[in-house]
């Protein structure tokens, strides 16, 4: 159990900045995920925490003690690599035992053949074997202890990598996209196991992934990274429902959130490319704003109703109980994606023009700088009802 503090970490590869002053406080025992697309710097950040790479500026502390000068083996961290990095020439048992051997046996005791004859060695070795066996049993790979990694399946190798990390009982677990080499079904079951592992061990987990589903299901908090910057750190649900900026909203959520450029009108309504929507923005007339509307915030509107968006259907994706409908809006670039109930929307077809009602209370507002505009304090946010008539806005 250890809290990790990252203070303004920066690193560049040559002329390429990979981390731009990243600061983050990871709480002891929490499961924190670094989420972001490839190349955003999350793996580099993880490796800096591990001590495998050195930052150019900024510091890393573990339980408030700076560890920057310490080599990986002294930082009490364990790491699970994307490729597992199992030693191919050693058995599973030897792989898991290695960290213990390096720590508990002296260099003399580690010599082949004669090492175990030295005083104290045999007792330590027996202890190590017991620890290895226990860890293997926990991960259900004890039947494979005598095999080599090359003879194991992907899922088994993953467990061996976990075992090698766990056996030392480190205070921090670092995981670099550990599930990306597994097939989809295995990934889902391993996710559950990792979550269970965290619960059992209670140790700080720092997990790197580009997969939103993993981030959302596993984490206590998610840290969204893009282009070497930390955009937002919050519990998963908050990241989804309350993103701090446009880039976070666009990264999270599948299908992608719809972004519509709009302008606030004199009468308080919002002009979204020719169609008027009744949304409380708390902004002055003439202000430009970007509306972030998730596909599930759009419903099929009855044919005559104000405050709707309309467009021609270009593509329908049937997902079983839902339909994802892609629309072209006249005069607008980009398509609108809406999630509709399959039964209620069974009549829609490609080429049709349909009207979609917007759930105003679920609309996210973003300014020109990409930052989120939260409509002031609660009193300003007026939910627009399902009623067909427009409701007068509260003017600032």
């Amino acid at each position, binding site marked *: 159990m250890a809290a990790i503090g990252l203070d303004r970490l920066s690193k560049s590869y040559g002329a390429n900045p990979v981390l731009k002053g990243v600061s983050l406080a990871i709480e002891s025992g929490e499961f924190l995920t670094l989420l972001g697309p490839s190349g955003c710097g999350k793996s580099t950040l993880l*490796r800096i925490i*591990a*001590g*495998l790479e050195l930052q150019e500026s900024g510091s890393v502390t573990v339980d408030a003690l700076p560890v920057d000068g310490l*080599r*990986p*083996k002294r930082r009490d*961290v*364990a*790491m699970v*690599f*994307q*490729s597992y*990095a*199992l*030693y*191919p*020439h*050693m058995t599973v048992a030897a792989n898991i035992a*290695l*960290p213990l051997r*390096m*720590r508990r046996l002296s*260099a003399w005791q580690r010599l082949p053949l004669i090492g175990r004859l030295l005083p104290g060695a045999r007792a330590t070795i027996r202890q190590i074997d017991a620890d290895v066996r226990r860890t293997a049993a926990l991960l259900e790979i004890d039947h494979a202890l005598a095999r080599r990694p*090359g003879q194991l399946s992907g899922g088994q190798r993953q467990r061996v990598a976990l075992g*090698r990390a766990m056996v030392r009982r480190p205070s921090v677990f670092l995981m670099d996209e550990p599930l990306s080499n597994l097939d989809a079904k295995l990934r889902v079951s391993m996710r559950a196991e990792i979550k269970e592992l965290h619960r059992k061990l209670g140790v700080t987990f720092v997990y790197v992934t580009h997969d939103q589903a993993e981030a959302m299901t596993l984490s206590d908090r998610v840290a969204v990274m893009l282009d070497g910057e930390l955009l937002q750190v919050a519990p998963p649900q908050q990241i989804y429902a309350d993103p701090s900026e446009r880039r976070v909203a666009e990264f999270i959520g599948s299908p992608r959130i719809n972004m519509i450029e709009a302008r606030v009108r004199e009468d308080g309504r919002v002009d979204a490319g020719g169609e008027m929507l009744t949304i409380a923005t708390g902004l002055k007339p003439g202000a430009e704003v970007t509306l972030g509307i998730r596909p599930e915030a759009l419903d099929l509107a009855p044919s005559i109703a104000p405050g709707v968006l309309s467009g021609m259907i270009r593509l329908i994706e049937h997902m079983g109980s839902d339909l994802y409908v892609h629309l072209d809006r006249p005069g607008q670039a980009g398509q609108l994606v809406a999630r509709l109930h399959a039964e209620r929307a069974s009549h829609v077809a490609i080429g049709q023009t349909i009207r979609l009602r917007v759930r105003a209370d679920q609309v996210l507002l973003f300014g020109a700088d990409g930052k989120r505009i939260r409509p002031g304090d609660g009193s300003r946010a007026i939910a627009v009802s399902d009623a067909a008539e427009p409701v007068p806005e509260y003017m600032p």
Partner: protein
Amino acid sequence: MTAASSLCHSGALEPSRDAASMSSLRKRKLDDMLAATALTGPAVALLLTLFIFPALAVVVIALTDWQFGAKSLRFVGLANFSAVFADPGFRASLGNTLAYVAMVVPGTVLAGLGTALLIESGKSFRAFYRAAHFLPFMATLAATAIAWEALLHPTVGLVNMAFAALGLPTANWLRDETTVLPVLALIGIWQNLGFAMVLFLAGLKNIPQDLYDAADVDGADQWLDRLRTVTLPMLGPVAMFVVIVVALRAFEAFDTVQILTQGGPGHASELLLYTLYRESFEFLRAGYGAAITVVFLVIAVTLTLIQVRLMDSRVHYQ
């Protein structure tokens, strides 16, 4: 071809095997056969003439009493072989060769591995060091042997001058029967270490960085630990391969003996291939020389087959 094209025209390529389509199929196969024959003909003929028949001929000659220019030959069974193995000169040669290989192989492998590890351990001047150590392998051994002769000259050679200055014992390196074979082995190591080094360099490049990272995290971050935990085990297959390849080259050593010692003093530096050359082409003892050739062949083929086996198991290792 016309039958085929008319079939295409009609648009109906039915799977029914009527006579027209069958003969066009056969013609295509014939065309393919002709093409293949034309393309491979010269190579096949030459392979048979220059490799297969000669290989068989060597074995046959070894079993006869044929001499150069003789009109007839007689099968003498294994008489040539027994003569060869009874000859103290040949036994000395075989013994020398085995000793030579036993010196050259470990020396080359260790020197090659050492330089490869040193070069890879840093980023600067890699190409330069690699080139410098590879140069002996490229150079014409006949020419560099002469340079070695000058270095090893008993009075004005650099080696003896340096040794004398350092208080080390000097010797007439190439004329003293106790030192001549090790000295030739040294030249062999010198020539081949660049080759071993380059093979090891390729092997080192193939070790995934992830393994070193994992070793770091696991606590094996000192150079000796890294060597034992990751580098040497991962180089295992490459090392086995290098051993065989260097052994093959060592068995084929000839130039230095021919130019520097001619097998002397006495038989002290006589190596197998030199004996083969002498008997076959200077003394023109065909049957005898062929028997030696067969011995050489058996050794070489055995080593090559082991090499092939190793290549196969390398795939399974990963």
